[in-house]
């Protein structure tokens, strides 16, 4: 409750399932304790706020030593869907909401969600491609202006 003047700006640049959650969890945690939160989605992070792609974020075990799976196995077809399924189960077990619900929670809690203009242009996306919770499309300079007095996290 001493956090009322704190502000957090989170840049989400990765679109895999395991890299989507840290930003969402921290944004929501900040809001729960009274910190103002701005989220900026760019590059592959756009998948998290993309209406269709957000339903299907993947966890890729290939090249990830933390999974303990040898790369020679991780490269096999079906490994990524299987690992993704396992991660979904794990997330469910600890009561983590799915990505769409998480964005809705953050939005309803007053967190602001911004899409990167450059990434939109590069990927030929329009605002219709993005979930309703997106507050707007902004450029890097606009975002840095919003984040002027914030702590910045790059994920």
């Amino acid at each position, binding site marked *: *409750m001493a*956090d*009322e003047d704190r502000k957090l700006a989170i840049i989400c640049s990765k679109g895999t399932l395991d890299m989507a959650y840290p930003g969402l*969890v921290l944004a*929501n*945690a900040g*809001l*729960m*304790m*009274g*910190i103002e939160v701005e989220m900026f989605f760019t590059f592959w992070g756009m998948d998290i706020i993309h209406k269709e792609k957000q339903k299907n974020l993947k966890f890729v075990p290939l090249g990830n030593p933390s999974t303990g799976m040898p790369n020679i196995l991780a490269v096999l077809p079906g490994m990524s869907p299987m690992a993704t399924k396992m991660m979904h189960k794990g997330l469910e077990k600890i*009561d*983590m*909401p799915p990505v769409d619900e998480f964005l*809705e*929670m953050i939005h*309803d*809690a*007053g967190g602001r969600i911004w899409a990167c203009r450059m990434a939109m242009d590069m990927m030929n996306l329009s605002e219709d491609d993005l979930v309703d919770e997106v507050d707007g499309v902004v450029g890097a300079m606009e975002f840095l202006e919003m984040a002027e007095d914030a702590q910045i996290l790059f994920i």
Partner: protein
Amino acid sequence: MTTLADLKLDADGYLADPNDWSPEVAELFAQELGIELTDRHWQVINYVRQEWEKNGDMPSLRRITKQSGVPTKELYKLFPKGPAGKIAKLSGLGKPKGCI
């Protein structure tokens, strides 16, 4: 009449023992937080107390919004700027530790 000074608080200003809680205690904390408790506030507090009695833990905000009948948007209006801590305090529980 009881005041906050009569209550045993922990280092963070939360009620030290959740068993010392009563609606009167909630009213004292509400004054401290500048919140005027309405039926909707009580709906949340009563739900949290009930869950604590069952599980010995504070339910996550996500669970509160799903089970108490008070949705996220309203929850943040009822307990503005940091609902997790405010709800815990008003419900006589310690500083919340959960991540959602």
